């Protein structure tokens, strides 16, 4: 286990390094000129040059890269090129929206995927199972933006139960209102993501149903369905861990679009704005934080998977 964790850890660090290199150098290949943007169209070339120097953009690329990474290792994500504000502080503040949103989405997705996935597997070949499968296929094809709009029409405009968009200025000091305004966005991601994962759980359950230990239990007098529910479902837990890993990337990506749709002041919306204004230092730090998050979750999922699946212990990485 320790050996596996170490090897996998090395891969994680390599992953983070490669990501940082890819992010940094892609953003520097052909930069929109931030200095020009700050100086405005009236500025003389000298003024632009001075701003460029004050931002450190005239230094060699490699030096800029090591500065950036060195800062991050000391917990400093840099400052915005446009406003001069600390990126780390802003990220921490926006995370207060994005983090709860991701957690809520994930909960909703699991609440849909686990029971319906297992049910559609148990009912396989009957009308109910087929109907569930078809519904999952169809919902998984729905674009998140459209799902969000339809939910807004129903729950905000027709029923008037939930706010159509926005996040209370007072934030989590008014927990009820904050929670309310995250509910529709979380439902949007949760339903679409849940439909996708439901198919995953379904096939995992079907796979479990064909395992020897389920057949043995059936041979000893349980009905096939009893055998599946008592002995097969625990094995499905394993694939749920894998699913969680897949899901995190999906939810982070989904939240970028959804925060824009519901005008939520989260990390995703911040990223979209900064890409628009080409605030490169902010964009590169935000991208690294988000990608790093996906990589770390993947790492943790692999470790848990390895720890709880006895079959993996013998295998090499």
């Amino acid at each position: 286990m320790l050996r596996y964790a170490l090897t996998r850890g090395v891969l994680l660090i390599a992953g983070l390094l490669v990501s940082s290199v890819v992010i940094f150098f892609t953003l520097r290949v052909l930069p929109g000129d931030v200095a020009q943007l700050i100086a405005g169209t009236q500025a003389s070339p000298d003024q632009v040059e001075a701003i460029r120097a004050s931002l450190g953009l005239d230094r060699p690329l490699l030096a800029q890269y090591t500065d950036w990474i060195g800062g991050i290792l000391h917990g400093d994500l840099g400052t915005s090129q446009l406003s001069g504000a600390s990126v780390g502080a802003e990220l921490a503040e926006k995370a207060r929206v994005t983090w709860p949103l991701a957690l809520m989405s994930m909960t909703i997705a699991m609440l849909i995927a686990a029971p319906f996935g297992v049910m559609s597997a148990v009912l396989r070949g009957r009308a109910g199972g087929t109907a569930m499968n078809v519904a999952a296929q169809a919902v998984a094809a729905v674009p998140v933006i459209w799902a969000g709009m339809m939910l807004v029409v129903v729950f905000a405009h027709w029923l008037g139960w939930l706010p159509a968009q926005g996040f209370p200025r007072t934030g989590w000091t008014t927990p009820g209102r904050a929670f309310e305004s995250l509910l529709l966005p979380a439902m949007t991601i949760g339903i679409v993501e849940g439909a996708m994962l439901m198919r995953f759980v379904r096939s995992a359950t079907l796979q479990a149903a064909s395992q020897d230990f389920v057949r043995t239990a059936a041979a000893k007098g349980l009905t096939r369905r009893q055998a599946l529910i008592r002995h097969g479902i625990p094995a499905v837990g394993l694939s749920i861990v894998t699913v969680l890993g897949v899901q995190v990337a999906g939810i982070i990506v989904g939240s970028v679009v959804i925060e824009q749709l519901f005008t939520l002041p989260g990390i995703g919306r911040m990223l979209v704005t900064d890409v628009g204004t080409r605030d490169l230092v902010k964009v590169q730090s935000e991208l690294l934080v988000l990608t790093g998050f996906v990589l770390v979750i993947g790492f943790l999922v692999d470790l848990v998977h390895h720890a709880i699946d006895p079959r993996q212990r013998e295998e090499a990485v």
Partner: protein
Amino acid sequence: MPRRLMPRWLRALLSSGTGLFGVIVVLLIALTALVSAFWTPFDPMISDVRGRWADPGWPHVLGTDGTGRDILSLVMAGARTTVFVAVGSGVVATGVGVALAALGALTARWMRETVAVLVDILIAFPVLMIAMMISAVWGGSLWVVVLSVGIGFGVSIARVTRPELRRVQQSDFVVAGRANGLTTGQNLVRHLLPNVAPVFIVQLSWSMAVAVLAEAGLSYLGFGATLTEASWGTLLADLQRYIGVHPLTVVWPGLAITITVLGLNLLGDALREATDPTLSHRSAQVHVPVVVA
């Protein structure tokens, strides 16, 4: 083509309900895109302020939007953008996928393994992140979508194709080819690629589904289609502002995206079932794409 002359995979594809649905949807979208290049009921870009927010009926079958543009024409013209992005990113994904898979399977050992590790790392990079990176540099355009989806899916195609390529490489006919004096490149084109093509095409079909979602999502965010290009994503963004007053208008572009994505996904599933004889229904693994839009 007479039925008995069809290749077996095509027959299997058309005889499964979902496969047939996928084929029909894909053909329908392609046809709509083609027709819209020459004819749409109205000019999708011309506004008519007096005729704005017309209800569905005649002559505006799906009604008009806030500037009086005909929604049916906009949706038809949007199909062109969708087809462009799907085909474009398919081409890029094929190039990236073949290159990475070949580098990861056929070169010297150190090179092979470096590429394999690199692919394992890059696969964690969500398509949207790649798109954000490219549009931070070049600004938004449809090429951003084509490149980011193409690169992202090229990497995942390479990951699936590489082991397949390694396996086929051990086959007698490949060894015989080499013994007959074929270079690695010739062997790749003549023997290896045709044998991994089924795996490849299935992946391509799924990646096109994601391309359609990505185009809508990125155009919605303002990183995709520009104002002069009709797109389902920008249309959704436009209509969203009046969603409280005219909720019905939003239905059409969303429905178009959903049906297209469903068609491509089902086509991919059916293609895989038709081309992979080792795949039994029971052990069928589901592909789980990452939400992009």
